[in-house]
């Protein structure tokens, strides 16, 4: 008799906790779903095509630095940020670049579009999740399996 009573209590407490947890996760899900554009740290050049009123709006654009586009002219860095769909954005930047900014590597630029050129105020290097020593790359290159630059 006592065991049945205890089981009922345990059941009750379990359902109570389940309701608390479910309510909370539902509210967090709704908040983060409706704010997903704000939570996203950057947009890709492809996303810019479907956005309107991007001129003079403070934005973050991310992608890869296009190969053979990184140049230093008259005290300004110029380069193109390209994404998987081959859409690109022309960027100028007048300060020092972070060490890891290289061609064909990830980058995030923060600034505004002025006359279709993105004038960056902050540039951040975005490294990917691949880690390997130079010797492993040399080995891959020998075998012809290396797909980087």
């Amino acid at each position: 008799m006592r065991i049945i009573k205890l089981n009922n209590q345990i059941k009750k407490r379990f359902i109570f906790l389940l309701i608390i947890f479910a309510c909370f996760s539902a509210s967090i899900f709704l908040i983060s779903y409706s704010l997903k554009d704000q939570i996203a740290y950057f947009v890709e050049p492809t996303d810019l095509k479907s956005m309107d009123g991007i001129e003079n709006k403070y934005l973050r654009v991310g992608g890869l630095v296009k190969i053979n586009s990184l140049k230093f002219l008259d005290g300004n860095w110029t380069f193109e940020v390209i994404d998987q769909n081959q859409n690109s954005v022309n960027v100028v930047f007048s300060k020092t670049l972070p060490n890891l900014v290289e061609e064909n590597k990830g980058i995030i630029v923060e600034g505004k579009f002025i006359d279709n050129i993105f004038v960056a105020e902050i540039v951040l290097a975005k490294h990917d999740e691949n880690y390997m020593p130079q010797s492993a790359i040399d080995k891959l290159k020998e075998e012809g399996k290396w797909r980087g630059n």
Partner: protein
Amino acid sequence: MFAITPNTLSNFMNSMSRYVILLSLLLISVSIFLIIFLENDYYQGISFKIMFIHVPTAWLSLAIFLMMGISSIIGLIFKSPTAFTVARSLSPIGLIMSIIVLVTGSIWGNLTWGAYWVWDARLTSMLILAFIYLGHILLLHSFEHFQKADFAASILAIIGLVNLPIVKFSVDWWTTLHQESSVLRIGGPSMTNDYLITLIVSFFGIFMLTIFWFSNIFYIIIEKRKMERSKLLND
């Protein structure tokens, strides 16, 4: 499991703790040796070696919270004092772990990204995790009776469980400056085996240190309660 009293668990952990700390020191020394002689990353150079502190402590700060949440659920449902005491001893360790993650991460971020801190989804959700740990500790210390404190803090720990998948999957759900997972990901680890082995050795070293530390905090809590009880009986 629910028949285990805090005392038996404490005694069991005390009998094991000398082996745990020896194993931990051994693994940490091996991992330091491995880290020193490891070849640099082709892209990030030497700065990637901060990963061997950053990643194990990040995994642990999530795992400790999961453990805290589960023991809070067991504690609330089965009214188990052992489970409550486990959750109580875990939160200071989790707080320190998440502070280490944030500090090493921001040093690493400055070396590679070019910024100490940005408000992207991964960094922000990790900061929230650290604040939930802090809130858990503060709640535990804001009641006169420890049973009430355990009840309130357990509710917070269960609510905080919602944050765990957000921390883990933030890099997949939203665009972030933080990289995606290198080890626990679909398609296997994206690092060479020498890096992976070093990471696993250093993880288990820090993990064993965490267990040792946990058993010490658990022991202190139990002994303090015993002293308070005997004081009450003597008065």
